[in-house]
């Protein structure tokens, strides 16, 4: 049981069906069991349509499983109401999307502060310092007031990573974070994810199509047709920039 409390995430018999009750009901995830540890840096791979995004939505508490249980930080989530899941999501999960999904109306710094503002209103001085620190670490201190549409793709994605980390989440979910970046920028972004995952001390789960990225992760979870077909750990990941 101690393992369950230690684990950031534990899936037990997780199933997800769409169009429940309709003739075209389809089960996308067929009972997944998975444990993500605190220091995991894991890649979730699999062909299109294998259910990666569905699984990520479930883990991110954006969607609810049809059956099974999802423990986040040891807490069962299937019985939570929307407000409870929203709170837990805000406190413990950071998101990085394929398309950065920054809010265009705000400058980079305000985008990074957004998750904090959503929860506490006006950000504290300490929060602003932390956000500035993260931007600086991403090499973006000059662009604090710049609107997202005036930043390059790589810069936008780095702002998004800073935003995901500002709440010091326990789990960082990244959905094809480098999907629309060129190779070099992708490698930079990947390295940042890796570095900050370690520094902030949060588990990272990365959905990717890129075999080079997945090879650079400590752990690779292969999802095919809604089933985990392999789950391999590599002691130390090689560098991707080679």
């Amino acid at each position: 049981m101690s393992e369950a409390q230690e684990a950031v995430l534990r899936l037990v018999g997780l199933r997800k069906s769409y169009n429940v009750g309709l003739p075209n009901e389809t089960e996308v995830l067929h009972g997944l069991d998975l444990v993500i540890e605190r220091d995991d840096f894991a890649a979730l791979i699999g062909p299109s349509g294998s259910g990666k995004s569905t699984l990520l939505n479930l883990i991110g508490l954006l969607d609810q499983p049809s059956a099974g249980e999802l423990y986040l930080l040891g807490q069962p989530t299937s019985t939570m109401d929307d407000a409870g899941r929203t709170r837990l999501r805000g406190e413990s999960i950071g998101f990085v999307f394929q398309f950065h999904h920054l809010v265009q109306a705000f400058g980079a710094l305000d985008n990074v502060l957004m998750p904090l503002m959503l929860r506490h209103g006006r950000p504290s001085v300490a929060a602003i310092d932390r956000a500035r620190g993260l931007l600086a670490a991403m090499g973006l201190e000059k662009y604090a007031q710049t609107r997202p549409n005036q930043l390059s793709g790589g810069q936008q994605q780095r702002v998004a990573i800073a935003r995901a980390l500002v709440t010091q989440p326990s789990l960082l979910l990244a959905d094809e974070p480098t999907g629309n970046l060129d190779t070099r920028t992708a490698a930079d972004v990947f390295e940042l994810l890796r570095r900050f995952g370690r520094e902030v001390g949060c588990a990272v789960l990365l959905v990717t199509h890129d075999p080079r990225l997945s090879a650079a992760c400590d752990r690779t979870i292969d999802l095919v047709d809604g089933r985990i077909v392999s789950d391999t750990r590599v002691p130390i990941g090689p560098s991707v920039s080679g």
Partner: protein
Amino acid sequence: MLALQFLRDGRGQTVTIMVGVAVGVAVVVFVSALIQGLQSNIVQRTLGTQAHIRVLPPDEVNRRQAVAEGALQLVREDKRAQRRRSINNWQQVVATLDTLPSVRAVSPVIAGPAFAGRGAALESVALTGIDLRRYQQIIPLPDYVIDGSARLEPGEAMIGSELATTLGLRVGDKLRLDTGRDNPAVVNVVAVFELGVRELDARNVYLGLKQAQALLGLPGGVTQLDLVVDDIFAANTIARRIARLTGLEAESWMEKNAQLMNALSAQSLSTNMIIVFVSLSVAFGIASVLSVSVVQRTREIGILRAMGAGRQQVLHVFLIQGALYGLVGALVGIAGAYVLVWVFNTFGPGLFFIPVAHTLVVFALVLATVVGVLAAAVPSRRAAMLDPVVAIRYV
């Protein structure tokens, strides 16, 4: 905060809808002020020449002998002619009415018919005996004097301009008054007034109270008490209270001018209709702009939800936007209305002056804000109910 940023971001939309709201509010405020100004002008003109409440002695009725138990009585009754009579004990009634807080002034008046003659010319007039000092609080006669000076010593009379023209009278001329009681009097014309109502200017002759009492054969008596009250629209209530208090008849200006009151309330109704329909169209405008805004921001809403924004927060963002559309639009609209009113007062026909009441301004602000929030309710709910999974993937 978030709502403000969204407003700033969608600047084009924001400006468009705020102009829409502003125009609506300007129309509401201007039309309301116009009608209010018009109505108070009409009321003022009407009340400028008449008392708010008139207290009269009750009509005389025939007294019948009581009928014995079980007996049947057949009655044929002629209504009694209402002779001119004094209000009993009027000094005390005046003293009582003077103490009522809602009554501003009381003036005893004796009124009756007479012929006014000069040479061979004869006109029928309404003789009105007044105590000028008290009466000018009811009708500011000195303000209406166009020739001579307002005073009423014994042997002096003030006459209307029409009568002066008909009889060829000027200040200083003599006028013969005959009430058919074989006691005609000759009085000096000391002032000619013009009330602006032809009927009154042709028929009213003001005398001192004592002289009129003598002429009309009611020494020491008065036939009516004229009153003004502080709140003219409470005249009905006050009149009823006075009637109960004194046992006399009390008639308010509202009863006497029932036609006018009808017209006024019809006007108020049409103003209210304008307000309702303008509010409706403003509401639909705000609702449609926000609906578009919600669709445009679907993805951003999804991100906010993923980052820990609750449904309530999303709801609030759009409700606040609606309220701001209403509030800021109303501020601009009110400024516009002030300009319109100023233009009307300065360059308009000059028939009357339009005041803008503070209550109207506050009312418009509150109305627009409430309409904004209500209009935002449906789009806000839709935004709040968006499934974050769907919203994030929305392109």
